[in-house]
């Protein structure tokens, strides 16, 4: 089928079925059954086996209609991971419910002792009959309290080098061994949780990939997560949503505070607006390169530049509002915003890989500078020095 007729077909189907008032579950079921949820996947896996261009056309029609549910073969982190590494049994049990949004998920990756060095994780999973016994602590988990399952990485073999002793599981969250505690951020918000795993259990059948292959599974999952992040490209917080795509209007802010005539403030504002524009254009270029199939080095820069932009924005907001930056709360929205911006910028410069780790990645993967020598590459995890 050529693209144009595919396009008309999808358009017609949407015209026949899509209704803003439709029940979401029913609608998603219809999309999944029709194959539009994952058009690139094979027909055995709820897809249509379409090539990229055709699949893009299907997604475009859904976007045009404002209908959700398509393109999950790009954006559904959970389903993609199951498809890539799940056994036939796991695919059977999880794929369709994940596409329908019936199973809620969370990520059990980071640990208090394993942040930048994620592979240094210390949560253990020890075989015990048909299941594994899991002990350890995870952190920075969103939606932990609501999730049915967590994508868990845990150490199954401490006697091999750290990357090789990790396995990847779908851990049931609703069990006595799992305790969730909200984690309050320095901004006062609580978007994340700590998850304590004490004699928690996960069936051996819920392992994705082979034992010790978990790091590779994780890389796939992380790649899909980056796609999701790029799609949404939004901060963690909705508390301080701004007009104009979430960006504070510094000119208006300066005008309101009588600072728009201050030459120093004007230089500051111009710098921030320039960084914003550069970041936007860099992202456009990255998008264009990705669409042409050129691997884009620009995509990796975005997070670093965004971090700089957010910190700089917080600084300039503070400079503009002056004394009001000592205040917070709804009575002082501009001061509150300035403080939130300045503090929440660390969400980006630390979360999802610190700026420092990001510079390593850019230096090594894009600029091809050599890695630092790693003395522990071939050392069993058990023997690697750890925090006291």
């Amino acid at each position, binding site marked *: 089928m050529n693209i144009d007729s595919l396009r008309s077909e999808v358009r017609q189907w949407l015209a026949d079925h899509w209704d803003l008032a439709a029940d979401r579950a029913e609608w998603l079921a219809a999309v999944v059954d029709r194959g539009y949820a994952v058009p690139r996947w094979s027909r055995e896996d709820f897809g249509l086996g379409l090539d990229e261009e055709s699949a893009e056309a299907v997604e475009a029609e859904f976007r045009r209609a404002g209908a959700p549910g398509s393109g999950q073969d790009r954006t559904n982190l959970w389903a993609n991971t199951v498809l890539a590494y799940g056994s036939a049994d796991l695919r059977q049990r999880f794929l369709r419910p994940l596409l329908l949004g019936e199973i809620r998920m969370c990520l059990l990756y980071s640990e208090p002792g394993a942040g930048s060095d994620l592979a240094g994780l210390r949560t253990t999973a020890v075989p015990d009959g048909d299941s594994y016994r899991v002990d350890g602590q995870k952190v920075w988990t969103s939606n932990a309290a609501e999730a049915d399952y967590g994508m868990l990485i845990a150490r199954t073999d401490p006697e091999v080098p750290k990357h090789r002793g990790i396995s990847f599981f779908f851990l049931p969250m609703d069990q006595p061994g799992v305790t969730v505690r909200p984690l309050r951020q320095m901004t006062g918000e609580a978007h994340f949780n700590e998850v304590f795993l004490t004699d928690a259990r996960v069936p051996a059948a819920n392992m994705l990939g082979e034992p010790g292959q978990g790091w590779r599974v994780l890389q796939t999952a992380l790649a899909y997560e980056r796609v999701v992040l790029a799609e949404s490209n939004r901060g963690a917080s909705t508390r301080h949503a701004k007009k104009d795509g979430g960006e504070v209007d510094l000119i208006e802010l300066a005008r309101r505070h009588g600072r728009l005539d201050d030459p120093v403030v004007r230089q500051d504002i111009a710098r921030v607006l320039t960084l914003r524009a550069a970041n936007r254009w860099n992202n456009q270029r990255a998008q264009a390169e990705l669409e042409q199939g050129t691997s884009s080095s620009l995509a990796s820069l975005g997070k670093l530049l965004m971090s700089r932009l957010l910190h700089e924005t917080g600084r300039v907001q503070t400079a503009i509002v002056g004394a009001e*930056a000592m205040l917070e709360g709804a009575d002082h929205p501009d001061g509150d915003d300035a403080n939130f911006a*300045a503090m929440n910028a660390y969400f980006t410069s630390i979360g999802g890989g610190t700026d420092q780790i990001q510079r390593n990645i850019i230096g090594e993967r894009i600029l091809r500078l050599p890695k630092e020598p790693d003395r522990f590459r071939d050392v069993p995890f058990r023997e690697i*020095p750890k925090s006291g």
Partner: protein
Amino acid sequence: MTFDFTDEQRALRQAVRELLDDHSAEPAVRAAAASATGVDQDLWKLLAEQLGLAGLVVPEGCGGAGAGPVELAIVLEEMGKKLFCGPYLSSSVLAATLLTELSCAEFLPDLASGQRTATVVFAQQSIAAGEGLSGEQRFVLDGATADLLLVVAGGPRVFAVDPAAGGVSIQPMSTVDGTRRLAAITLDDVPARPVGDPGSTAAAVDWTLRTGEVALAAEQAGGARAALDMAVAYARARFQFGRAIGSFQAIKHLCADLLVEVESAYSTAYAAAWALAERSPEATALAAMAQAFCSDAFVRVAADNIQIHGGIGFTWEHPAHLYLRRARSSAQLLGDAATHRERYLSAIVDQG
């Protein structure tokens, strides 16, 4: 300027440090910050009664220690390190200095003993001097807890106002730094008693502000030092990739740059304190310079401390953000760094 302390000054620092180590540890600071008033009353008592710090700069004749700006800087630096919570800057620095400069003996003994506290309401722009005072002033330091308001009205003239008097309305402001409290004060035809000689008021107010700038700079220098110490300790103890993170240049070099900030902040603060102590003609310029530099330095070190800590530094439970909040609030308290830099430059350009 030799940056050399006397034995008495060293002993003073040691005494303050010991008291605060015992009584201004993180739980005490968090408790004060979360309290209604932001004041740790027990600590205030100890400080006043045990060390006599409330009257540090009050003349001996009024029950104080008659000490000067260098001693003040020592105390404030130590307080800054521990995020001390209490009306020291408002009452023992600003109010005590103003009353002393105005040669007003009436309130000083009570301030010196710490039994009462006062704050200065810098309201030259917003409140006119007259029989009854009227007007509004926001961002009054410790305005909601002070027992006495010293209102600097246009002129300038200073008036003693009883916060409980009719026509006085005091509204606490919600501060981002719970350890530093501000209030909005509204006066509606409040009867007020003039304080001090009109002829010396302008100079007294000016000197009070310079003293406040230097005291705050020292406090900021102390806060910056503590934040760096915290960062360095973490960089030594935290292992990733089998190594202390402080062995990575990304962290090590950042800490080295921060040390330059911290030591330079200390230098500017104490240079200004000595200039003030000597009533040097440079004092005004150096106070502005110190206030600008220490504001930036503390904000930078407190902020980078969070980055060095990574995820844990982004949590409410970790004390790193307490220092950032204090740093951000201090950087605005007496005017922002750019304003002080401009004042500094104006001063030296005028001096030729």
